[in-house]
Protein backbone atom coordinates (compact mmCIF):
# COMPACT_ATOMS: atom_id res chain seq x y z
CA UNK A 1 0.00 0.00 0.00
CA UNK A 2 2.77 2.37 0.99
CA UNK A 3 4.83 1.36 -2.02
CA UNK A 4 1.77 1.92 -4.20
CA UNK A 5 1.44 5.44 -2.81
CA UNK A 6 5.11 6.14 -3.48
CA UNK A 7 4.67 4.91 -7.02
CA UNK A 8 1.65 7.18 -7.53
CA UNK A 9 3.55 10.22 -6.21
CA UNK A 10 6.44 9.36 -8.50
CA UNK A 11 4.13 9.02 -11.51
CA UNK A 12 2.42 12.33 -10.66
CA UNK A 13 5.77 14.11 -10.40
CA UNK A 14 6.86 12.57 -13.67
CA UNK A 15 3.69 13.65 -15.44
CA UNK A 16 3.87 17.16 -13.98
CA UNK A 17 7.50 17.43 -15.06
CA UNK A 18 6.64 16.22 -18.54
CA UNK A 19 3.63 18.53 -19.07
CA UNK A 20 5.06 21.69 -17.49
CA UNK A 21 8.54 21.05 -18.84
CA UNK A 22 7.30 20.58 -22.40
CA UNK A 23 5.03 23.63 -22.22
CA UNK A 24 7.88 25.78 -20.89
CA UNK A 25 10.25 24.45 -23.55
CA UNK A 26 7.82 25.08 -26.41
CA UNK A 27 7.13 28.61 -25.14
CA UNK A 28 10.84 29.30 -24.76
CA UNK A 29 11.66 28.04 -28.25
CA UNK A 30 8.93 30.24 -29.80
CA UNK A 31 10.34 33.19 -27.90
CA UNK A 32 13.92 32.36 -28.95
CA UNK A 33 13.05 32.07 -32.64
CA UNK A 34 11.13 35.37 -32.60
CA UNK A 35 13.91 37.24 -30.83
CA UNK A 36 16.62 35.74 -33.03
CA UNK A 37 14.68 37.11 -35.98
CA UNK A 38 14.37 40.53 -34.35
CA UNK A 39 18.03 40.69 -33.33
CA UNK A 40 19.30 39.23 -36.60
CA UNK A 41 20.88 42.54 -37.61
CA UNK A 42 23.40 42.35 -34.78
CA UNK A 43 26.14 40.11 -36.09
CA UNK A 44 28.14 37.87 -33.76
CA UNK A 45 31.46 36.15 -34.51
CA UNK A 46 33.90 34.03 -32.62
CA UNK A 47 36.75 35.68 -34.56
CA UNK A 48 39.23 37.36 -32.22
CA UNK A 49 40.69 39.89 -34.61
CA UNK A 50 38.47 42.80 -35.47
CA UNK A 51 38.68 43.38 -39.24
CA UNK A 52 39.96 46.76 -40.36
CA UNK A 53 36.77 47.82 -42.12
CA UNK A 54 34.82 47.36 -38.90
CA UNK A 55 37.35 49.03 -36.60
CA UNK A 56 35.09 51.19 -34.45
CA UNK A 57 35.88 54.12 -32.24
CA UNK A 58 34.55 52.31 -29.19
CA UNK A 59 34.46 48.67 -28.03
CA UNK A 60 33.03 47.22 -24.86
CA UNK A 61 32.38 43.90 -23.21
CA UNK A 62 28.82 42.57 -23.48
CA UNK A 63 27.59 39.60 -21.46
CA UNK A 64 24.44 37.50 -21.57
CA UNK A 65 23.72 34.96 -18.89
CA UNK A 66 20.86 32.61 -18.13
CA UNK A 67 20.19 29.77 -15.68
CA UNK A 68 17.91 26.96 -16.81
CA UNK A 69 16.66 24.17 -14.57
CA UNK A 70 15.73 20.68 -15.62
CA UNK A 71 12.29 19.30 -14.89
CA UNK A 72 11.60 16.07 -13.03
CA UNK A 73 10.81 14.17 -16.20
CA UNK A 74 14.08 15.19 -17.88
CA UNK A 75 15.97 14.10 -14.83
CA UNK A 76 14.42 10.64 -14.67
CA UNK A 77 14.60 10.18 -18.44
CA UNK A 78 18.29 11.16 -18.37
CA UNK A 79 19.13 8.84 -15.49
CA UNK A 80 17.37 6.01 -17.30
CA UNK A 81 19.26 6.80 -20.51
CA UNK A 82 22.53 6.86 -18.57
CA UNK A 83 22.06 3.16 -17.89
CA UNK A 84 22.37 2.26 -21.56
CA UNK A 85 24.30 5.25 -22.91
CA UNK A 86 23.85 7.17 -26.12
CA UNK A 87 22.63 10.67 -26.91
CA UNK A 88 21.23 12.32 -23.82
CA UNK A 89 18.36 13.78 -25.81
CA UNK A 90 16.51 15.01 -22.73
CA UNK A 91 19.29 17.49 -21.96
CA UNK A 92 20.18 18.43 -25.54
CA UNK A 93 17.26 20.80 -25.88
CA UNK A 94 17.95 22.31 -22.45
CA UNK A 95 21.56 23.05 -23.37
CA UNK A 96 20.54 24.38 -26.80
CA UNK A 97 18.01 26.75 -25.24
CA UNK A 98 20.57 27.94 -22.71
CA UNK A 99 23.22 28.77 -25.29
CA UNK A 100 20.81 30.57 -27.59
CA UNK A 101 19.17 32.50 -24.76
CA UNK A 102 22.59 33.64 -23.50
CA UNK A 103 23.52 34.89 -26.97
CA UNK A 104 20.18 36.68 -27.25
CA UNK A 105 20.66 38.45 -23.93
CA UNK A 106 24.17 39.43 -24.96
CA UNK A 107 22.78 40.81 -28.22
CA UNK A 108 20.11 42.70 -26.32
CA UNK A 109 22.81 44.35 -24.24
CA UNK A 110 24.73 45.14 -27.42
CA UNK A 111 21.62 46.68 -28.98
CA UNK A 112 21.17 48.86 -25.89
CA UNK A 113 24.69 50.17 -26.43
CA UNK A 114 24.00 50.83 -30.10
CA UNK A 115 26.46 48.17 -31.28
CA UNK A 116 25.89 46.29 -34.53
CA UNK A 117 28.55 43.61 -34.21
CA UNK A 118 30.04 41.47 -31.45
CA UNK A 119 33.41 39.83 -31.98
CA UNK A 120 35.35 37.24 -30.00
CA UNK A 121 32.15 35.65 -28.66
CA UNK A 122 32.85 32.95 -26.05
CA UNK A 123 30.62 30.55 -24.17
CA UNK A 124 30.89 29.33 -20.62
CA UNK A 125 28.69 26.70 -19.06
CA UNK A 126 28.54 25.97 -15.37
CA UNK A 127 26.54 23.19 -13.81
CA UNK A 128 24.78 24.37 -10.68
CA UNK A 129 24.37 20.89 -9.30
CA UNK A 130 23.98 21.01 -5.54
CA UNK A 131 26.05 18.00 -4.53
CA UNK A 132 25.29 18.63 -0.84
CA UNK A 133 21.75 17.44 -1.45
CA UNK A 134 22.95 13.97 -2.35
CA UNK A 135 21.27 12.06 -5.15
CA UNK A 136 18.10 14.13 -4.81
CA UNK A 137 19.86 17.25 -6.11
CA UNK A 138 18.23 18.84 -9.13
CA UNK A 139 20.39 19.81 -12.05
CA UNK A 140 20.47 23.31 -13.46
CA UNK A 141 23.03 25.02 -15.63
CA UNK A 142 24.20 28.58 -16.14
CA UNK A 143 25.11 29.67 -19.64
CA UNK A 144 27.20 32.78 -20.24
CA UNK A 145 27.97 34.27 -23.64
CA UNK A 146 30.30 37.24 -23.78
CA UNK A 147 32.13 39.15 -26.45
CA UNK A 148 33.47 42.49 -27.62
CA UNK A 149 30.74 44.79 -28.92
CA UNK A 150 31.74 47.20 -31.67
CA UNK A 151 29.97 50.54 -31.24
CA UNK A 152 30.00 52.75 -34.34
CA UNK A 153 30.55 56.48 -33.90
CA UNK A 154 27.00 57.45 -34.83
CA UNK A 155 25.69 55.57 -31.83
CA UNK A 156 24.72 57.55 -28.72
Amino acid at each position, binding site marked *: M*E*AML*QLLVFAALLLAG*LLFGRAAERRHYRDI*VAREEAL*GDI*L*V*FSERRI*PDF*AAPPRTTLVVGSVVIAEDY*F*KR*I*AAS*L*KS*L*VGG*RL*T*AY*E*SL*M*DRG*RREAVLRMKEEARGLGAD*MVFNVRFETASMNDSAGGRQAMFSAEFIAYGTALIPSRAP
Partner: protein
Amino acid sequence: MTYENPRIPEGINVARESVPAEFLRLLAGLLLVVVVAALVLHLAGGWLARQVPFALERSWVGERLLVPPGIGTDAADAQAQERVQALARELAAGMGLPQGMTVDVHLVREEVPNAFATLGGHVLVTDGLYRRLPSENALAMVLAHELAHIRARDPIAAAGGGAALTLLMLALGGDAEALAPQLARLVQLGYSRQAEARADEAAIAALLGHYGHAGGAAGLFEALADYDGAGRELPALLATHPADAARIARLQQAARGWDATRQPLVALPAL
Protein backbone atom coordinates in the same frame (compact mmCIF):
# COMPACT_ATOMS: atom_id res chain seq x y z
CA MET B 1 35.59 38.34 -47.14
CA THR B 2 32.09 39.02 -45.99
CA TYR B 3 30.84 38.91 -42.45
CA GLU B 4 27.32 37.63 -41.99
CA ASN B 5 25.18 35.45 -39.69
CA PRO B 6 23.07 33.17 -41.84
CA ARG B 7 19.99 31.65 -40.32
CA ILE B 8 20.84 28.25 -38.86
CA PRO B 9 18.27 25.51 -39.43
CA GLU B 10 16.62 24.05 -36.34
CA GLY B 11 17.31 20.55 -35.17
CA ILE B 12 21.07 20.38 -35.54
CA ASN B 13 21.96 20.49 -31.87
CA VAL B 14 18.71 18.97 -30.65
CA ALA B 15 17.56 15.44 -31.35
CA ARG B 16 14.42 15.21 -33.43
CA GLU B 17 13.25 12.00 -31.81
CA SER B 18 10.64 12.22 -29.08
CA VAL B 19 12.08 12.08 -25.58
CA PRO B 20 8.90 10.63 -23.95
CA ALA B 21 8.72 7.84 -26.53
CA GLU B 22 12.34 6.94 -25.91
CA PHE B 23 11.70 7.12 -22.16
CA LEU B 24 8.79 4.69 -22.43
CA ARG B 25 10.86 2.27 -24.52
CA LEU B 26 13.69 2.37 -21.99
CA LEU B 27 11.28 2.01 -19.06
CA ALA B 28 9.64 -1.03 -20.64
CA GLY B 29 13.06 -2.56 -21.27
CA LEU B 30 14.18 -1.87 -17.72
CA LEU B 31 11.01 -3.37 -16.25
CA LEU B 32 11.46 -6.46 -18.39
CA VAL B 33 15.05 -6.86 -17.20
CA VAL B 34 14.05 -6.38 -13.55
CA VAL B 35 11.15 -8.84 -13.80
CA VAL B 36 13.27 -11.47 -15.52
CA ALA B 37 16.09 -10.95 -13.01
CA ALA B 38 13.59 -11.19 -10.15
CA LEU B 39 12.12 -14.38 -11.56
CA VAL B 40 15.52 -16.00 -12.05
CA LEU B 41 16.74 -14.91 -8.61
CA HIS B 42 13.54 -16.07 -6.93
CA LEU B 43 13.79 -19.48 -8.53
CA ALA B 44 17.51 -19.74 -7.82
CA GLY B 45 17.02 -18.65 -4.20
CA GLY B 46 14.20 -21.15 -3.80
CA TRP B 47 16.27 -23.93 -5.32
CA LEU B 48 19.21 -23.16 -3.05
CA ALA B 49 16.97 -23.01 0.01
CA ARG B 50 15.51 -26.43 -0.84
CA GLN B 51 19.03 -27.88 -0.63
CA VAL B 52 19.10 -27.10 3.08
CA PRO B 53 18.45 -30.40 4.93
CA PHE B 54 15.15 -30.43 6.78
CA ALA B 55 16.91 -31.25 10.07
CA LEU B 56 19.00 -28.09 9.71
CA GLU B 57 15.93 -25.98 8.94
CA ARG B 58 14.24 -27.39 12.02
CA SER B 59 17.22 -26.76 14.27
CA TRP B 60 17.37 -23.14 13.07
CA VAL B 61 13.74 -22.50 13.74
CA GLY B 62 13.36 -24.69 16.85
CA GLU B 63 10.05 -24.32 18.61
CA ARG B 64 9.45 -20.83 17.27
CA LEU B 65 6.51 -20.16 15.02
CA LEU B 66 7.59 -17.82 12.27
CA VAL B 67 4.38 -16.13 11.21
CA PRO B 68 3.59 -12.85 9.49
CA PRO B 69 2.78 -9.97 11.84
CA GLY B 70 -0.82 -9.69 13.04
CA ILE B 71 -1.43 -13.39 13.60
CA GLY B 72 -1.68 -14.67 17.16
CA THR B 73 0.33 -17.74 18.19
CA ASP B 74 -1.31 -18.49 21.54
CA ALA B 75 -2.43 -22.11 21.80
CA ALA B 76 -6.20 -22.35 21.53
CA ASP B 77 -7.21 -25.63 23.18
CA ALA B 78 -4.75 -28.30 24.28
CA GLN B 79 -7.19 -31.19 23.75
CA ALA B 80 -8.28 -30.08 20.31
CA GLN B 81 -4.67 -29.40 19.38
CA GLU B 82 -3.80 -32.97 20.33
CA ARG B 83 -6.64 -34.28 18.11
CA VAL B 84 -5.53 -32.15 15.18
CA GLN B 85 -1.92 -33.23 15.68
CA ALA B 86 -2.98 -36.89 15.76
CA LEU B 87 -4.96 -36.46 12.53
CA ALA B 88 -1.95 -34.80 10.90
CA ARG B 89 0.25 -37.67 12.03
CA GLU B 90 -2.09 -40.23 10.47
CA LEU B 91 -2.22 -38.25 7.22
CA ALA B 92 1.57 -37.79 7.19
CA ALA B 93 2.05 -41.52 7.58
CA GLY B 94 0.07 -42.06 4.37
CA MET B 95 1.76 -39.23 2.46
CA GLY B 96 5.27 -40.67 2.52
CA LEU B 97 7.11 -37.79 4.16
CA PRO B 98 10.90 -38.23 3.84
CA GLN B 99 12.88 -39.85 6.62
CA GLY B 100 13.28 -37.53 9.61
CA MET B 101 10.67 -35.00 8.50
CA THR B 102 8.41 -34.24 11.43
CA VAL B 103 5.49 -31.87 11.41
CA ASP B 104 4.05 -29.93 14.35
CA VAL B 105 0.50 -28.66 14.05
CA HIS B 106 -0.48 -25.68 16.17
CA LEU B 107 -4.07 -24.71 16.79
CA VAL B 108 -3.83 -21.02 17.65
CA ARG B 109 -6.29 -18.49 19.05
CA GLU B 110 -7.09 -16.24 16.10
CA GLU B 111 -10.46 -15.15 14.75
CA VAL B 112 -9.30 -14.83 11.11
CA PRO B 113 -9.77 -18.20 9.37
CA ASN B 114 -6.36 -19.18 8.12
CA ALA B 115 -3.98 -22.10 7.87
CA PHE B 116 -0.46 -22.21 6.56
CA ALA B 117 2.80 -24.10 6.72
CA THR B 118 5.80 -22.19 7.93
CA LEU B 119 9.52 -22.81 8.43
CA GLY B 120 10.72 -25.70 10.55
CA GLY B 121 7.88 -28.09 9.73
CA HIS B 122 5.28 -26.10 11.65
CA VAL B 123 1.69 -25.95 10.46
CA LEU B 124 -0.55 -23.29 11.91
CA VAL B 125 -4.34 -23.59 11.97
CA THR B 126 -6.41 -20.80 13.51
CA ASP B 127 -9.39 -21.67 15.69
CA GLY B 128 -11.34 -19.22 13.51
CA LEU B 129 -10.88 -21.69 10.66
CA TYR B 130 -11.42 -24.76 12.84
CA ARG B 131 -14.82 -23.47 14.00
CA ARG B 132 -15.95 -22.83 10.46
CA LEU B 133 -14.97 -26.20 9.02
CA PRO B 134 -18.03 -28.43 8.47
CA SER B 135 -16.32 -31.79 8.98
CA GLU B 136 -13.13 -33.58 9.92
CA ASN B 137 -12.72 -34.38 6.24
CA ALA B 138 -12.44 -30.69 5.44
CA LEU B 139 -9.88 -30.28 8.24
CA ALA B 140 -7.96 -33.26 6.86
CA MET B 141 -7.94 -31.58 3.43
CA VAL B 142 -6.45 -28.44 4.99
CA LEU B 143 -3.85 -30.40 6.95
CA ALA B 144 -2.87 -32.62 4.03
CA HIS B 145 -2.52 -29.54 1.82
CA GLU B 146 -0.14 -27.93 4.32
CA LEU B 147 1.74 -31.23 4.83
CA ALA B 148 2.23 -31.38 1.08
CA HIS B 149 3.75 -27.89 1.19
CA ILE B 150 6.18 -29.00 3.87
CA ARG B 151 7.02 -32.17 1.97
CA ALA B 152 7.77 -30.02 -1.11
CA ARG B 153 9.82 -27.62 1.10
CA ASP B 154 7.68 -24.72 -0.14
CA PRO B 155 8.03 -22.55 3.02
CA ILE B 156 11.83 -22.51 2.97
CA ALA B 157 11.83 -22.09 -0.81
CA ALA B 158 9.61 -19.00 -0.43
CA ALA B 159 11.94 -17.65 2.26
CA GLY B 160 15.01 -18.29 0.07
CA GLY B 161 13.38 -16.73 -2.96
CA GLY B 162 12.32 -13.72 -0.89
CA ALA B 163 15.86 -13.30 0.43
CA ALA B 164 17.25 -13.38 -3.12
CA LEU B 165 14.74 -10.69 -4.16
CA THR B 166 15.71 -8.53 -1.18
CA LEU B 167 19.32 -8.81 -2.33
CA LEU B 168 18.29 -7.70 -5.81
CA MET B 169 16.43 -4.70 -4.44
CA LEU B 170 19.44 -3.77 -2.29
CA ALA B 171 21.70 -4.07 -5.33
CA LEU B 172 19.38 -1.79 -7.29
CA GLY B 173 19.47 0.70 -4.44
CA GLY B 174 15.73 0.59 -4.01
CA ASP B 175 13.78 0.61 -0.79
CA ALA B 176 14.36 -3.09 -0.19
CA GLU B 177 12.15 -3.54 2.83
CA ALA B 178 9.19 -1.83 1.23
CA LEU B 179 9.49 -3.21 -2.28
CA ALA B 180 10.79 -6.76 -1.92
CA PRO B 181 7.53 -8.22 -0.55
CA GLN B 182 5.58 -6.61 -3.40
CA LEU B 183 8.00 -7.99 -5.95
CA ALA B 184 7.93 -11.39 -4.25
CA ARG B 185 4.13 -11.42 -4.40
CA LEU B 186 4.26 -10.55 -8.09
CA VAL B 187 6.77 -13.29 -8.86
CA GLN B 188 5.03 -15.84 -6.67
CA LEU B 189 1.66 -15.23 -8.27
CA GLY B 190 2.27 -17.63 -11.13
CA TYR B 191 4.64 -19.88 -9.25
CA SER B 192 2.48 -20.33 -6.17
CA ARG B 193 -0.57 -21.29 -8.24
CA GLN B 194 1.40 -24.29 -9.44
CA ALA B 195 2.58 -25.07 -5.92
CA GLU B 196 -1.01 -24.79 -4.64
CA ALA B 197 -2.32 -27.07 -7.37
CA ARG B 198 0.39 -29.64 -6.58
CA ALA B 199 -0.41 -29.44 -2.86
CA ASP B 200 -4.11 -29.90 -3.65
CA GLU B 201 -3.37 -33.02 -5.71
CA ALA B 202 -1.25 -34.49 -2.92
CA ALA B 203 -3.96 -33.64 -0.38
CA ILE B 204 -6.68 -35.34 -2.46
CA ALA B 205 -4.49 -38.44 -2.69
CA ALA B 206 -3.96 -38.37 1.08
CA LEU B 207 -7.71 -38.03 1.69
CA LEU B 208 -8.44 -40.95 -0.62
CA GLY B 209 -5.89 -43.00 1.27
CA HIS B 210 -7.22 -42.06 4.68
CA TYR B 211 -11.00 -42.04 4.23
CA GLY B 212 -11.34 -44.00 0.99
CA HIS B 213 -13.07 -41.00 -0.64
CA ALA B 214 -12.45 -37.29 -1.20
CA GLY B 215 -15.90 -36.14 -0.07
CA GLY B 216 -16.10 -32.98 2.00
CA ALA B 217 -12.75 -31.75 0.74
CA ALA B 218 -14.34 -28.63 -0.69
CA GLY B 219 -15.75 -27.80 2.75
CA LEU B 220 -12.83 -25.45 3.28
CA PHE B 221 -14.01 -23.26 0.44
CA GLU B 222 -17.59 -23.25 1.66
CA ALA B 223 -16.31 -22.02 5.03
CA LEU B 224 -14.21 -19.32 3.39
CA ALA B 225 -17.00 -18.31 1.03
CA ASP B 226 -19.23 -17.71 4.06
CA TYR B 227 -16.52 -15.62 5.68
CA ASP B 228 -15.95 -13.68 2.50
CA GLY B 229 -19.67 -13.25 2.01
CA ALA B 230 -19.96 -11.69 5.43
CA GLY B 231 -18.46 -8.57 3.87
CA ARG B 232 -15.07 -8.96 5.44
CA GLU B 233 -11.91 -8.88 3.46
CA LEU B 234 -10.04 -12.13 2.98
CA PRO B 235 -6.72 -12.13 4.80
CA ALA B 236 -3.79 -11.24 2.61
CA LEU B 237 -2.23 -14.64 3.08
CA LEU B 238 -5.22 -16.40 1.65
CA ALA B 239 -5.28 -13.99 -1.28
CA THR B 240 -2.13 -15.67 -2.59
CA HIS B 241 -4.12 -18.89 -2.65
CA PRO B 242 -6.29 -18.45 -5.67
CA ALA B 243 -9.57 -19.81 -4.34
CA ASP B 244 -10.71 -19.96 -7.90
CA ALA B 245 -13.42 -21.99 -9.49
CA ALA B 246 -10.91 -24.37 -11.07
CA ARG B 247 -9.63 -25.44 -7.67
CA ILE B 248 -13.12 -26.08 -6.30
CA ALA B 249 -14.10 -27.89 -9.49
CA ARG B 250 -11.06 -30.15 -9.13
CA LEU B 251 -12.05 -31.04 -5.54
CA GLN B 252 -15.65 -31.70 -6.54
CA GLN B 253 -14.47 -33.86 -9.41
CA ALA B 254 -12.27 -35.85 -7.00
CA ALA B 255 -15.33 -36.40 -4.77
CA ARG B 256 -17.56 -37.58 -7.65
CA GLY B 257 -17.48 -41.27 -6.76
CA TRP B 258 -18.38 -40.52 -3.15
CA ASP B 259 -21.66 -41.77 -1.72
CA ALA B 260 -22.66 -39.48 1.14
CA THR B 261 -24.99 -42.02 2.78
CA ARG B 262 -22.67 -45.01 2.71
CA GLN B 263 -19.52 -43.02 3.48
CA PRO B 264 -20.64 -40.27 5.89
CA LEU B 265 -18.35 -37.40 6.74
CA VAL B 266 -16.66 -37.55 10.12
CA ALA B 267 -17.98 -34.94 12.52
CA LEU B 268 -15.52 -32.45 13.94
CA PRO B 269 -15.64 -32.13 17.77
CA ALA B 270 -16.43 -28.59 18.86
CA LEU B 271 -13.78 -26.55 20.63
